[in-house]
């Protein structure tokens, strides 16, 4: 259905337009002048100035795997993050922890854990879905590489970014 938008009825002086145009030009010139003289400062010049110190707590940067205080990779390769990941950036190949291992009762660990950072959209669903509190979004945002292969974060890289996480649920500790 067509909607008729009522237009304002202009007086003949307003219909002349020139004063309004002049006013517009004055506004833009004011902005021009202020920026030129450095009075307006909006743009942050990125490589020299960074937000790093002021990133908010909820900032979602690169996803990473964390280890617990005992040095165990918390991930048990349940592949829920792989399932939930909207752009399908995560690829996990699960493996079995050999019987003699200290953490043999955990049974399963990620043999390979790749996150394709070209695909990753930093949505944080992996963090939210993880039942083991093993994957977290860290504050790294400058993810660079010269090839597509460079942009895939393997397990080692993910653990490096993730580091050790203290104070999370210790489900697999010795007593249990």
């Amino acid at each position, binding site marked *: 259905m067509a909607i008729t938008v009522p237009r304002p009825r202009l007086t003949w002086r307003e219909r002349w337009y020139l004063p309004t145009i002049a006013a517009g030009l004055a506004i833009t010139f004011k902005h021009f002048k202020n920026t030129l003289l450095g009075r307006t400062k909006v743009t942050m010049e990125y490589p020299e100035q960074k937000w790093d110190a002021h990133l908010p707590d909820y900032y979602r940067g690169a996803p990473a795997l964390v280890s617990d205080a005992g040095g165990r990779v918390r991930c*048990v*390769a349940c*592949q829920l993050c792989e399932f939930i990941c909207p752009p399908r950036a995560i690829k996990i190949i*699960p493996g079995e922890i050999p019987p003699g291992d200290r953490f043999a009762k955990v049974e399963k660990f990620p043999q390979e854990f790749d996150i394709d950072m070209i695909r990753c959209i930093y949505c944080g669903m992996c963090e939210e879905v993880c039942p083991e509190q093993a994957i977290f979004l860290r504050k790294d945002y400058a993810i660079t590489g010269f090839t597509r292969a460079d942009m895939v974060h393997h397990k080692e890289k993910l653990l490096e970014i993730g580091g050790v996480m203290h104070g999370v649920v210790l*489900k697999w500790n010795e007593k249990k």
Partner: protein
Amino acid sequence: MPNEPAVQMFNVQIDGVWHRFPKGTRVIEACEQVGVFVPRYCYHKMLSSPGNCRMCLIEMGFPRLGPDRKPELGTDGKPIINWMPRPQICCAQDVAEGIAVRTDSPLVKECQRGVMEFLLINHPLDCPICDQAGECRLQEFSVDYGTSQSRFLENKVKKPKAVQVGPRVTLDDERCILCSRCIRFCQEIAHDDVLGFVDRGSHTVLTAHPGKSLDNNYSLNTVDICPVGALTSTDFRFKMRVWFLKETKSICTSCATGCNTVIGTREDVIYRQTPRENDDVNSCWMCDYGRLNYKYLEAEDRLLEPRIRSDGKLVPADWPTAIGQAALHLKQFAASEIAIVASGRMTNEELWLTAQLASSLGVKCIDIVPRRGRGDKILLSKDRNPNTNGVRLILGSRSAPGAKLMAIADAVRSGEIKALVILKENAMHLGLSVEELARLPALIVMNILRNAATEKASVVLPACGFAEKRGSMVNGKGRLQRLNRATRPPGNARDDWEILRDLLQGIDGGDSLHSIEDVFRRIRETVPQFAGLSLSKIGDLGVHILKIEELPATHPSDEEAIEQAIAVQAARRSVRSDLDRAYANPAESITRQAEAQTAPRR
């Protein structure tokens, strides 16, 4: 069933509504038939009901009888029910006249919640690790009938983990909820009583009897029926989460039984095969041998691209070149100089195209390689070719399958046969040596895996395995069933029927077959048993197309002829008994399954 005596019918009230059920129906089944689901762990419709999981507790009652032993009627004209004061299990109770059942009363709900809480007391919370997660009854019912909080503060009981109860089954006792399905399966279906419970109370564990191992050919069915992640397939364990698997309905092609299966794949990799219920074929089961016989599809020696012989060497070629070369080879020989060896593993469509190929070339020398093995009384058939009946119907040979093989081999040796077409078989199984094959002017091979014979071929045509193609097969009992494509063929391999179609068209110049449905339509026109059918009409469960008297098993003479042919062949060669080894231990014989695949012997 008008001829059978009338089954006694009972009136049963389920959740306030009266229904009629035949005698012998278990109450849990009666509920299911009218759309009332009662949760259960130990009950399995193919097994007996011990009633040990207590999940299916319901309230039950009987009509109040008056002094005249007649049910007293209420104001609505229906009998008044006397409810029993305590709940009953409904899996072990058969329907009886006038009984009433309540499945959603507060008492029932309270019972279910209680049973769930008891089951979860010692059950580990390792769903992220457990392979059953996603198809776990305990998980599902915990959501549906359990509570969200645990009141259990003590330490859980420790039990053995990762126990190898058999060569193909790994047991995690902590996850076991003691439903005893596996024990009953072994006793009642596999007739191999190896599993049992030991110890008491919370410390009860499932274990194999001393000195015994769950190593029968049906052991992996226990994994299927296990409602939790206690029994896991060693082959599938920790390989892939079930929610990633694309499930394709297909059939097993490892013997003539043709068990209905579901093939679980992800991104063109097969992760598991599980049985699909079909009461006319395999009930709910399948054998381990057939279930694990898929690894050869991902073997290293898969043929990946067509090759043609040029200057004495096999060089890669594109499909039109390879097909053209094959057609050229065949056209330059007289009909009497060509022999075709087809396979009982080919689908009806492929066999029909083979028959067309033979008739357009005028070839009379055509046969399949018979393949016999030890059968059992449960599912595994002696005939290890999945489509022997299809061969009979479509190639229309009067003699028994394999009867002409010796003659073909002799003719190759004597030089009478100059062109040999081997479809999905290893030419070595004709009893011909590599040198004899190398002497052939034209050897055209269509196969899945590389072997000594493919290396001597003039043209090699890489084909598809059973999980990579569509088609139909007729099982040993004359049931027409359907294969479905679960994965794409690797490399440049192509659908068998397309290869045969192109070869046929390269020889006779036709161009009327565009889809596999077209081929089936043509079969329908020529083979009376297929009349009125189409690939889609076959359905997931298949249709019977052969009468019992048409089945080969009723022809002892046939059987003898096959036995003789095989005996003679066996005498000519000394062979390793790969298939028997495979039968005894399928999980280990995967790498050389290629040989086993193509080795005909008993």
